[in-house]
Structure formats: C-alpha cells, structure tokens
C-alpha cells in the first residue's frame, strides 16, 4: 500500500497540482510527510549499492580515470536514439534518470541492465524492485551491442 502511495505521488511528476481534483482518495497528505514513512525502506531508485554487479553478460568493467570523450559522444548518440523514448537524463520519465547513476550502481550492474533487462528483472532483486517502483513498466531490451552499452555508460559518466 505504501509503495502504491509513493508511486501515485511520484507519478504526478513533481508538477504542482493547480486544478482541484474531484477525487481526493489517497492523495490528501502532503508529499513531504509520506516520502519516508516510518518503517519503510528507501525506494530502490534512491538506494546505493556499489557492490552488486547484477546478473548478466558483464562481470567486469574497468573505468579509466579520464572520461573517454569519443566514446561518450558515441554513447550520447546511442542514448538519444535508443533510450530517450523512456529516459530523460535529469528527471524521472517512464524510467529513472541516469544522472549520477554511478554514485548508486556499479558499472557492471548498469551494463547488465541495458544488455539483459529481462534477465535482470528475473534474477536481480534490486532490478525487480525497480520494476515495481516504476509501475511495472518493463525496461525494453534495445538489442545494444556490448560496445554500444559501454559507450552509453561512458556518456553517463559525463552527466
């Protein structure tokens, strides 16, 4: 119930409600109060897990200290073509924004999520929770090559 509650609030997209809603059920309380209700955990999208590499084809990624600009540029292009139908870089859309993702997730986890979303949702508890948090909207497998997914990851480092 609480999850649903939070989701409903989130789905308002942070936009201020100007109109008077004719149905007030489940919407009365102020958002601040319900964001971290007593006894609930942080939503999956806000949780930090820098050890979990996820389940999928990627077991190890090395990030060079310097961002590879060429790769990031290519990644931006791939992101634009393949991901923007559901993701905005800096705000929640159908799915979560990738900005700051590497502060919460390992690079392997990110790439596995891109390359095998079905497998991740099945086998990775965090990915499963995310699916529930985002209304059960599945992340589409856009059939990126490993190289393309890696470039998207590099692009995420620039955000």
């Amino acid at each position, binding site marked *: 119930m609480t999850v649903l509650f939070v989701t409903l609030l989130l789905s308002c997209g942070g936009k201020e409600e100007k109109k008077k809603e004719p149905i007030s059920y489940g919407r009365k309380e102020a958002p601040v109060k319900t964001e971290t209700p007593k006894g609930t955990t942080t939503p999956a999208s806000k949780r930090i897990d820098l050890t979990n590499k996820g389940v999928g084809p990627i077991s190890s990624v090395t990030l060079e200290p310097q961002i590879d600009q060429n790769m990031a540029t290519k990644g931006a292009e791939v992101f634009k073509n393949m991901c923007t139908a559901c993701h905005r870089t800096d705000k929640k859309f159908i799915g979560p924004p990738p900005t700051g993702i590497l502060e919460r997730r390992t690079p392997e986890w990110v790439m596995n999520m891109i390359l095998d979303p079905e497998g991740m949702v099945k086998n990775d508890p965090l990915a499963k929770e995310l699916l529930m948090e985002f209304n059960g909207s*599945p992340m*589409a497998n856009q059939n*990126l090559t490993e190289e393309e997914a890696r470039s998207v990851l590099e692009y995420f480092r620039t955000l």
Partner: protein
Amino acid sequence: MKNVIKSTLAILTVFAVITSCNNSKTSNNKSGALASNVAEKVYVAPGEHDEFYAFISGGYSGNLTVYGLPSGRMFKEIPVFSQFPTSGYGYSEETKPMLNTSHGFIPWGDSHHPDISQTNGEIDGRFIFINENNTPRIAKIDLKTFETTEIIEVPNSAGNHSSSFVTENTEYVVAGTRFSVPIPQRDMPIKDYKGNFKGALSFISVEPEHGHMDIKFQVLMPGFNYDLAHPGRGASHGWFFFSTYNSEEASTLLEVNASQNDKDFIAAVNWKKIEEYVNNGGGTMMPADYAHNVYDEATHSATSTMIKEVLVVNPSEVPGAVYLLPTPKSPHGCDVDPSGEYIIGNGKLSANLTVHSFTKMLDAIKNEKFDGDAYGIPILKFEDVLAGSVEQPGLGPLHTEFDDKGNAYTTFFISSEVVKWKLGTWEVLDRQPTYYSVGHLTIPGGNSRKPQGKYMFAMNKITKDRYLPTGPELEHSAQLYDISGDKMELLLDFPTHGEPHYAAAMRADIIKERSQKIYNLEDNKHPYAAKSDAESRVVRKGNEVHIYMSTIRSHFSPDNIEGVKLGDKVFFHVTNLEQDFDVPHGFAVLGQNTSELLIMPGQTKTSVWEPTKVGVWPFYCTDFCSALHQEMQGYIRVSSANSDTPLKWSLGEDIE
C-alpha cells in the same frame, strides 16, 4: 464405501492403461501399440520445434500459410494477394501499392502454387514464389522476414495456373496461362477462338542477389489451356514442361468439348535456346500494361511501377525450341522426377499414368520422328517418347511427388487415394486412402533434385466427417503420412485455411536460423519515421496532418494531439522504437475505416484517418505488449473545420 470401491477401480483401470501403454511401447507390434506410436511420431513437445516448414497456399484467401511438420500446427498466415487487417497489409499506405495492377487496386487474389527458390537443383530457402490465378501475378516472399516483397503482374496471361515454378538455379520463375486469350486483347467474337487465341508462357528472370523479378520473354503458344508445369533438372535442366488440355480449342462447355481428343500434349520448352535467341536480339517487343510492385525494406514502403511493353516470342521463329509430347486425356499435373529423366503426365481422364523419357525425347528430336505439327510446333510420336506407364493405378490422377529412394507418389482425386509406385519398373508398391478427394500432395523438397523424404501430406478438397461440423463450410483437411518405411502410414489430420492447392515444404534448419528478428532502427529510411523521441512531431501541410509518432512499451509519443479539423486527412506514421524480438505494437483510432496497423520492431507504418465527427477520439495499441498495455493510449482532438484550435501535441504533460 461405494465411492471408495469406484475410485479404487478407477485407479486400477488407469494403472492398467498405463501399464499396457508401457508394454506396447516396447513390444512394437501393430495391435494396441499403433495408436500411441503414431501419436509419438507427430508429437512435438512444448517448447520444441518442428523438423519441417510447410508453406501451404491459401487458394481463394489469396495468402500463404506456414505450418510445422510433423505437428500440423499453423504458425503464420503470410498476406500476399489479399488485404489482411491482422497486420494492415494492403491497408497501410506503405503496402497498398503491393496490390496495384493494370486493372487498378485489387484487394484479393486466388493463390495456388508456392515454390521455393533453388540453387543447383536443391532447395535453398531464400525465397518462396506463389502465383495469383485470377488477375495473373507472381509474388515473391522473402524467407528472412516471411514478408511479401515483390509482386509482378503477368500481361497476356489469363488464369495464371501453370505457375509459379522455378528452374534449377532460380534463373526463372515460370508462369503459364490457363486460358488462352486474344493477344493483344481486343474486342472480337468468342466463337472465333480457334487459331486466334494464344496461350502465353512467361519466363520471369530472378536476379541472383536480391531476387528482383523481370519478365524476360513470353512464348506465345497455340490456344490450348496450360495447366501445370515443372522444370527439367539435372540432364534436362534448360527445359521446362507444361501440361496442356483443350487442344480442341473449345470456348464453350469444356467439360465435354475439351475431352474429345484421345491425347493432349505436354509442351517441352527449351528455354535456354529461347533465352539465347532473345539475348541475340530475337523476339518482338509488343505494347503491354502491367504493374511491378516492389517493397523496399529500408523505407518499409512499396512502390508500384507500370511497365508498358513485353518481349514476345513466336515458337515457330526458334526452330528446336518447342516440341509437343502427346499425353493421354487432359493431363493435369506435369511432374519431373529428381533425376530429370522422367516427365509424368497425370491424365485426368486416363486409366494409366503416362511417363515420358527425356532421353527418348532428345533421340526422337534428333531423328526428327515427328507425327505432325500444331501451328508449326513439331509433335513427337507418343510411342517414341514413352518411358512406361503405371497401369490402372487408380481413378483421376492429379499430381505426383517423389521421395529420395526412387519412388513416386501420385494422388487420385476420384478414388481418394495416394498411390506409391516405383520409377523405372512402374509397379505399384502401396496405396493409402485419403479423406476425401485429394488434390495436390507435398513431400519436403519433393520438387527438387534432393527430396528430403520422411513425410508426405495430402491436401484434400472435401472434409465432410473428418472434423466437428462447423456449418456448411468446413476447413479443408490435410493428411500427413510417414513415408520412411515400405508402406505409407497415416499419422495425422490437420485443417488448412482457404483452399490449399499446393504446398512447398523444406527442412526447418535451412531457414530457421536466418529468420530476421527485428528491423534495425538505424537502417530505417522511411521518410516519415520518428526514430527517437526527439523526432516525434506533428506537421500540417494544407489539409494534411502528418503525425510522426513513436511507440515503445507502453506509450505513444505524442499521445495528446490537438488542432486537427474536420476535412483534414490525418496520417499516423507510427514507428516502433523497440529493438527486441517479437515486440510489435499496434495502432487503432476510433472510426479508422482502413484497418489497424501492426508495427514490427524498428518498422514504420502509416494509417490514414479522415475524421468525420468533431470530438476527442481515443487511440490505443491493439497488440498486448506489456503489463501496462492497457495504459498504452492517447487522445486526438478534432475541431470543426472553421475552428482556430492551434496544432499542438504532447506526451506526459497537458497541452496548454
């Protein structure tokens, strides 16, 4: 207590049945074991795949259906010559040109004889061709996508029946006419048929790399009916054989008047000789009018081009190119064995099956043993070309196919049976009943140098009591036989859709792995594609409103559209941004009087909608795509013609 006894008995009975099954499996005798053995032979366990694909023509449905063997499960209906609301084929702007002809847009067809492309006489699984009988056309289906990618109309032809059969290296797909007609078409009395009507045999070249079709030449033959055809193979490669009936050249009451002659003919056409003749400038270019429709997989769109001339060849101009082989009594099927030596004429009204010898034919030609001529075409002596005959095998022979062990299988329509006989000795080896009135039969690879054997299926014209009654109309019934042993064994009945005249079948592994799973978005060159969310937009051009819309699980972008007015022509150009196997999206808008669209991953399709009423009308995805499929929807606002509602669109926020 009674119940306890009952259930105990029941358990015991079940136990007994199970035990007897186990016994029968090992005993392998033909008593109670038969049924379970047969069931095992057609059982494809859940999640497993069939060993063969069968492509079965839909007849008057105009389409082609795809089945698995041995299960008899139908996997797909491929729209070819008929509009198909299931996918929007023939309704979407991109596919409407596929059904264009010189007679205008024709929304249906009568598909007959599929044939798979070959390389070196063996089935290669690249393309499958099929003919439209009524408004003569040949279609090509790409077996990478299982989509119809090309249709060419056949001018000077009428009742495109002895089609579509490919030569050994798919040099040509051949289309012979059933009806002879005035060539060129003109206003003339029907009674003047004899000597004035001609029958066109069309040789359509197939470009090796992409399979593009082009009518290379047409042979204008005497005014007979050309019924069926098959290519020579091996030694007889370079020749094509056509059965004829109505050598009487009757134009009325053919069931009597076309059955007068004791023998009709199989026409043997040396196409290599004619090809050489036309390559050296032979033949006459005559005015014509026919459509050539090509589907481009990059733009996801078809174009239709009208062609205004065709090259025709009078066979008497090319000595040695065409001969007539007398064949008893209105032959229907004209089948060539895997070696290419034997040409089987299935005389519908004949007691015996006639088998001609290619070697003897060449000898007779060499020695000029002619028995007269027809319009300048030499007629060979029946006895000189006869290899043998199968004596009184059944009633009403129609078609013959071959296995990989030197046996032939012929269907008998009147006596409802398939007869297995031996090539060379002509002895009958086995016969099995069919239910009922069998037409064609198919053996995987049975029309090639290398039949793949194992199964044969008969396509029956009459079903009657084989299935639960479903009113006066019943689906036709096909029957699958195991032909791996000495005797044919009936394994399965399965329903077929429309009227399956003929089918082509092949080992599944030849095409299975090559089957395309998605269309790459980056290769999408559709002029109205919205290849990313940023490209979604609405553009007005006069009274045309073009909506560049994209879809992904589970929304349309845009999903709120305003500023459309009555009198507008609204083009929904929908691009499916998915890049995952088997995730199509659908599109429907209330009042859409074409059909819904089904858009494959990476594809763009267009539906035109001309709203007739002011209001706010919903659109939605017609294909259950995800858990949030029911949320995949949007609204389009239609204002009156003189309103000033601005053109606006949005996704995820209100239009302000």
